[in-house]
């Protein structure tokens, strides 16, 4: 297995740097060989750019892939959207010689060439496939006695023929990684529904996207969970910041903490919440951390 390069994308380093730090801390603690990927750009985002101009989408994504090829490392993503773009482009250029030729004509202008000799991984499928829940559990220093609503997000599991991660209607791999930390993954209706943000919906139809989010949050609230866990900063933003926007627009209040899986994993590996970007100045996050601390004391 090759070493990995960490593809940051846009939202993680520029809006949720705590997820970046949580990821780096977890990878180091798990002894995973992963380095920075200097000079990468936007993936670019699948919902907007793929549908807007396929050539630009293919070419910019290919430049990012080339950066990792030059390091002779597979790419590791921590965002479902980045995974969608980079894994799909990587798949496309390996399968379609004419697409690869077209991309390389553009890349030639910056002195680069795409070879198609690495893989693109998402941290959830990587941990599940290469480590597995049992090995992850062996690293846990702090059992998390909490109830968790797992949000897979769309691009992690679709297109299913390319992802190869099993049943897309009732997948379990992400839930298994959560239960490995001592937590309970709680089933809830419409679990596989979109967060509401993807496909350019948040950008173009904000009100409609928030209605989708509110519908999902209402189901999660009924399940009486302690937090939501996701694997994508765009879903993270929609389910987290979306709660404030819903309160403002619809006067419906949700107080559910939202964590990226690397933040939850970081807590289980013994890192303090503030190192993982969990802002305890926010009341719901403080209550969540108090709950974890109480669980440790009992």
């Amino acid at each position, binding site marked *: 297995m090759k070493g990995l390069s960490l593809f940051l994308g846009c939202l993680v380093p520029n809006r949720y740097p705590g997820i970046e730090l949580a990821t780096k801390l977890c990878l180091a603690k798990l002894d995973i060989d992963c380095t920075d990927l200097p000079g990468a750009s936007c993936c670019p985002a699948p919902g907007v750019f793929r549908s807007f101009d396929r050539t630009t989408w293919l070419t910019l994504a290919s430049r990012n892939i080339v950066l990792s090829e030059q390091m002779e490392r597979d790419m590791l993503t921590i965002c479902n959207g980045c995974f969608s773009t980079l894994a799909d482009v990587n798949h496309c250029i390996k399968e379609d010689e004419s697409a690869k030729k077209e991309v390389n004509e*553009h890349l030639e202008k910056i002195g680069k060439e795409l070879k198609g000799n690495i893989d693109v991984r998402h941290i959830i499928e990587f941990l599940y496939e290469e480590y597995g829940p049992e090995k992850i559990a062996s690293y846990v220093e702090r059992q998390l006695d909490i109830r968790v609503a797992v949000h897979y997000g769309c691009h992690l599991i679709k297109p299913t023929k390319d992802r190869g991660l099993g049943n897309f209607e009732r997948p379990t791999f992400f839930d298994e990684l959560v239960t490995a930390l001592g937590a309970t993954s709680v089933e809830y209706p419409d679990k596989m529904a979109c967060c509401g943000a993807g496909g350019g919906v948040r950008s173009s139809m904000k009100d409609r996207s928030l209605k989708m989010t509110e519908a999902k949050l209402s189901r999660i609230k009924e399940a009486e969970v302690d937090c939501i866990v996701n694997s994508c900063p765009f879903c993270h933003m929609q389910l987290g910041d979306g709660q404030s926007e819903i309160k403002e627009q619809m006067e419906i209040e949700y107080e559910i903490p939202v964590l990226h899986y690397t933040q939850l994993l970081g807590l289980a590996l013994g890192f303090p919440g503030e190192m993982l970007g969990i802002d305890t100045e926010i009341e719901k996050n403080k209550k969540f951390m108090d709950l974890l601390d109480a669980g440790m004391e009992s």
Partner: protein
Amino acid sequence: MLLEYGHAVPINENNREKRVNLGLEELPETVQKYADGLEEVKTLLKSCAFEKLIEDIESGAREDKT
């Protein structure tokens, strides 16, 4: 944003500060830190005629409004 910064969501002052407070570098290891990388992205966007595509769409939108 992509044309100027190489990111659909570029960094802002608040998050520069947040990164430093977390112990991360103020700028992440992306095109925002590497000017030559950003130039490569801009070259590719020009090569793909992305800028012209945007201009054409914007001028079309303006004509629709008139």
